[in-house]
């Protein structure tokens, strides 16, 4: 037994050495790979798993429809970042170092994308986020792009909705304080709401909670005592659903508004009847086709998942994939640095969730859609123009 083990170990050692030599060769003369790899890092387990799965669904659908580029097969390498920032960074490193991907897609959850930001920048492999909306994802990072709008826009849209449509004069915020996305959204909402009302004290209460919390009774009791007209609660879908549910049990009748992360099946299932009437901003609605690609995406999605409505993030996952493929075509190369240059020059690209033009930061300039929960389903309410 010991002998077998020692032989095995020495074989492995030799293998590692050989592998080490291979990778230390100058990279200018690699043997042409048979396939082009696109890495995906998404939360597939843990608190954000439902969001990650929706995005991957879109990428896989796009991969099925467009399986080839530059005459080569495209392979998706999907890794799980376990809804954890440290895991997200190592997942991205793994994709670049071990799988040698040409580009990366991900991740649901701005925090995970930010965590991976330095790695893609250092290793010079472009990454395209599907639905990560925090400004810091792309700020100061030439290698990070995204196919969605960013939080300053989303926060502003919701503040205007609260002020104009709900006539709210006093707002309370309940934010997921450990989530960069939620904190960003809350601060942009606050800035715009204060500007609209002209009252620096119009946000009467700001409560925090942490990812994975179950009990929000203390925060909600405080919010209730301040008697706001609207409650803005950006955060993860399960926690948000539990918050709204517990609020109703505590006798809070104030309307809840939030951000794009709410748009998952789990939000409806966990929230049940209590989330009825909740309003949030998001990227896309199947009832409003924005480009010819939208129609194609919707048709194919219905074939692949009969009886299911595609989520906005699924369309964005789809868009992230076809945008990278388009960049490869324009660059006529699978070299990461050349793909990056092509991505940066993206203009009026017809994505399924609307046309994509990337600004200097690598952020898409897009319209926002406002949806509500009605009869246990997400229902389209309004579109807010980007400009």
């Amino acid at each position: 037994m010991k002998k077998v083990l020692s032989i095995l170990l020495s074989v492995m050692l030799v293998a590692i050495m050989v592998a080490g030599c291979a990778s230390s060769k100058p990279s200018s003369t690699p043997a042409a790979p048979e396939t082009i790899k696109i890495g995906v890092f998404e939360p597939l387990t843990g608190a954000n798993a439902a969001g990650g799965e929706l995005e991957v669904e879109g990428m896989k659908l796009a991969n099925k429809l467009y399986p080839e580029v530059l005459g080569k097969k495209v392979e998706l390498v999907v890794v799980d970042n376990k809804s954890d920032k440290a895991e997200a960074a190592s997942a991205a490193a793994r994709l670049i170092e071990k799988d040698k991907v040409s580009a990366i897609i991900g991740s649901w959850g701005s925090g995970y994308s930010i965590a991976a930001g330095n790695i893609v920048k250092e290793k010079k492999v472009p990454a395209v986020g599907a639905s990560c909306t925090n400004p810091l994802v792309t700020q100061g990072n030439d290698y990070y792009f995204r196919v969605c709008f960013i939080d300053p826009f989303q926060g502003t849209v919701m503040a205007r909705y609260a002020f104009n449509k709900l006539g709210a004069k006093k707002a309370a915020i309940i934010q997921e304080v450990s989530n960069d996305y939620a904190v960003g959204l809350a601060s942009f909402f606050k800035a715009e709401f204060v500007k609209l009302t002209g009252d620096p004290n119009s946000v009467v209460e700001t409560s925090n909670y942490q990812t994975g919390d179950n009990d929000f009774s203390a925060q909600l009791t405080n919010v209730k005592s301040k008697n706001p007209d609207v409650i803005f609660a950006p955060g993860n879908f399960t926690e948000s659903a539990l918050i709204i549910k517990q609020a109703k049990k505590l006798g809070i009748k104030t309307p809840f508004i939030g951000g794009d992360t709410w748009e998952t099946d789990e939000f409806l299932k966990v929230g049940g009847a209590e989330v009825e009437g909740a309003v949030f901003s998001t990227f896309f609605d199947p009832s409003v086709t924005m480009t010819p690609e939208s129609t194609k995406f919707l048709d194919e999605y219905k074939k692949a998942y009969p009886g299911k409505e595609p989520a906005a993030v699924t369309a964005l996952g789809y868009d992230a994939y076809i945008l990278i493929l388009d960049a490869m075509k324009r660059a006529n190369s699978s070299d990461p640095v050349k793909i990056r240059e092509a991505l940066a020059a993206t203009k009026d690209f017809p994505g399924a969730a609307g046309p994509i033009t990337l600004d200097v930061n690598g952020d898409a300039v897009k319209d926002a859609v406002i949806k509500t929960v009605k009869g246990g389903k997400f229902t389209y309410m309004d579109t807010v123009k980007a400009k």
Partner: protein
Amino acid sequence: MSSTTLQHLANGVSLGSLYALVAIGYTMVYGILRMINFAHGDIFMMAAYFAFFGIATFRVPWPFAFIGVILATALLGMLVERSAYRPLRDAPKNSILISAIGVSFLLENLANYLFSGKPKAFPEITFFANTVVIGGVSIQVITFFIPAVTMIILAILLYIINRTKLGMAMRAVSKDYETAMVMGIDINKVIAATFAIGSGLAAMGAIMWGIKYPQVQPMMGVMPGLKCFIAAVIGGIGNIKGAVIGGFILGLGEILLVAKLSSLTGYRDAFAFILLILILIFRPTGILGEKTTEKV
């Protein structure tokens, strides 16, 4: 007292009694075996899944489903004891501890694999989920049940331990299991019974937890597990009454921290651990863990 303060107290009592219920299970196993069953939180999680499948998937009426869940979880606890702890009974204590951590990871990943990482909605039971308003304080019906159930169980357990033959055997095993064995006590049976009761308590805790916080996911047992362990240590690990007191201190403390010092909300979980460190420094035996106090 304003209605807001009363509401905070009601919230704290309800969270505290949930912690207490699960902490009793921790402390019982420790009292008998001098071993911390780190898989307790994950047994709690499995029980929540059992309840979810029983009610949502197989549509068993809830009173029967709850009894089924408690029995199934007790069986699971015995199975874990039989396969992961009994073979290590004569091994050093650390080996059992490591084995318990292994069981914990096994159950978490098994649940992840079998039931997917996506959270599921715990079925709503109208009877418990309704709210009543008393003097401006909204209270869910389940909030009344949790402390009542905890107190009833505390009384039953104290009876079993102090007045029955099984309890006498448990106390004997906890004092010195080798001597107990020599005296003709079937220690395997006693320990299996301890695990069955402890796991059954975890199941009751999981059911109440599910009704109050209606979502089920594979990692849901981790934080409650740790917090209830802390509650057990605060009260004096091995002491059942102590576990209940520890649970209430932790639950009320957490709610009051979030309510009164809202800038510290992010440190809610840290609060529990800081409390643990303070207790271990200043009173390692816990509040009721005096040497003279009878261990389980």
